[in-house]
């Protein structure tokens, strides 16, 4: 059986293989890729229809609308990130793998972010323009999303990992995770507001960057611990 020599893949190789597997899986379900993006666009489109076309009102609330929509779209798409692995036993294999579970988790979430967070960032200026956002606020909007969407994914995944074993975890997931998004929402929407009134947002971006570093360091450990609880 083992006449051939043994090989232990390095951490980068593990990360790359898991990332590639996740992307392959996502592209085998191409139809579902577009759902969170459509959700994002439709929710934002509903606001001008409900509130009316006064440009001043829309302009004032546009950062909040886009950020809340991004937050909900991320949570919606995250709901299934561990589901199929849980159901077919792949998650047990990951939990029992000699490789660090946080690394496998980060690879999975990196793939998830590339397919949901990244498109949101690219779509956001178009939607900002639709909500009469001043042009000088569009780039800051993208910057806050670039720093903020990975945080949304990482923090949301903690809740998903905790609820993956429950039959109807979705409602509980929102209750668990949405309050945790509040600080991010305040600073991100605040940054875009500040940019719209022509002031510097360096301070805001630094805080968002700090939030990103903080969650990128600690969330994978929390997610791994939650997955170990969910697979018992």
């Amino acid at each position: 059986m083992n006449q051939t020599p043994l090989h232990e893949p390095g951490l980068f190789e593990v990360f790359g293989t898991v990332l590639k597997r996740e992307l392959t899986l996502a592209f085998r379900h191409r139809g579902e890729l577009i759902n969170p993006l459509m959700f994002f666009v439709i929710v934002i489109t509903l606001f001008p229809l409900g509130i009316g076309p006064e440009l001043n009102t829309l302009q004032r609330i546009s950062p909040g609308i886009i950020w809340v929509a991004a937050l909900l779209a991320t949570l919606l798409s995250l709901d299934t990130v561990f589901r199929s692995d849980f159901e077919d036993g792949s998650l047990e294999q990951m939990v029992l793998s000699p490789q660090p579970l946080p690394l496998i988790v980060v690879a999975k979430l990196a793939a998830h972010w590339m397919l949901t967070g990244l498109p949101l960032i690219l779509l956001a200026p178009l939607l900002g323009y639709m909500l009469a956002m001043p042009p000088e606020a569009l780039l800051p909007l993208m910057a806050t999303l670039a720093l903020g969407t990975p945080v949304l994914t990482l923090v949301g995944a903690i809740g998903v990992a905790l609820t993956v074993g429950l039959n109807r975890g979705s409602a509980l997931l929102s209750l668990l995770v949405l309050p945790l998004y509040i600080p991010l929402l305040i600073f991100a929407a605040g940054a875009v507001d500040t940019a719209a009134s022509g002031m510097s947002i360096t301070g805001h971006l630094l805080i968002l960057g700090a939030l990103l570093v903080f969650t990128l360091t600690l969330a994978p450990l929390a997610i791994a611990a939650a997955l170990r609880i969910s697979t018992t």
Partner: protein
Amino acid sequence: MLEVHGLSCERGERLLFENLSFSVRAGELLRIAGVNGSGKTTLLRLLCGLAPPDEGEIHWDGQRIRTTSEAWRRNTSYIGHNLGVKLELTPLENLRFARAIGGATSTEPLEALLDRVGLYGFEYDPCRTLSQGQRRRVALARLMFSNTRLWVLDEPFVALDAAGIDFLAGLLAHQTGRGGMVILTTHQDTPLKNKIVKQLHLDAVAP
């Protein structure tokens, strides 16, 4: 050596087993038998550390097992009731992933491995199109490149044809032959080729 002391497990209000003690040494195969609902699968999940026991302790080389310990995870291969085979992926893609997260594994080309496990010609078909027995063969192929000392297998013979059963029996004999250990559950009296086969009947220990 795997030692189990005074293991008890409850599921809901029901006591599955109580004060269970046994050990598995290098070169031994332990066959766990019992009727449906006697706690075979639960016991296997305890034995690979996926779930903590309600009472009792499981020791591996004198150390209590924990899935948070890398040394323990490095020793164990587990094939559960859910095979851990992704139906959207091909056998080759499944094994590529399994090998990446499987620690130190043999470098035998995966195509050759799939050929040996009887999946020649199916390497590039999504597992969704394969039969139950073929999907199980994909999972069993993980054992072929593994270098782990303990194999924990839940009903590994289910859905396999005669040739598959013979192949797996050979694989298990090879594992114990090189000083490894196997713990498995079976319903049927499967023809095992191992030299030392221990039996554990969960019905006998049930309260």
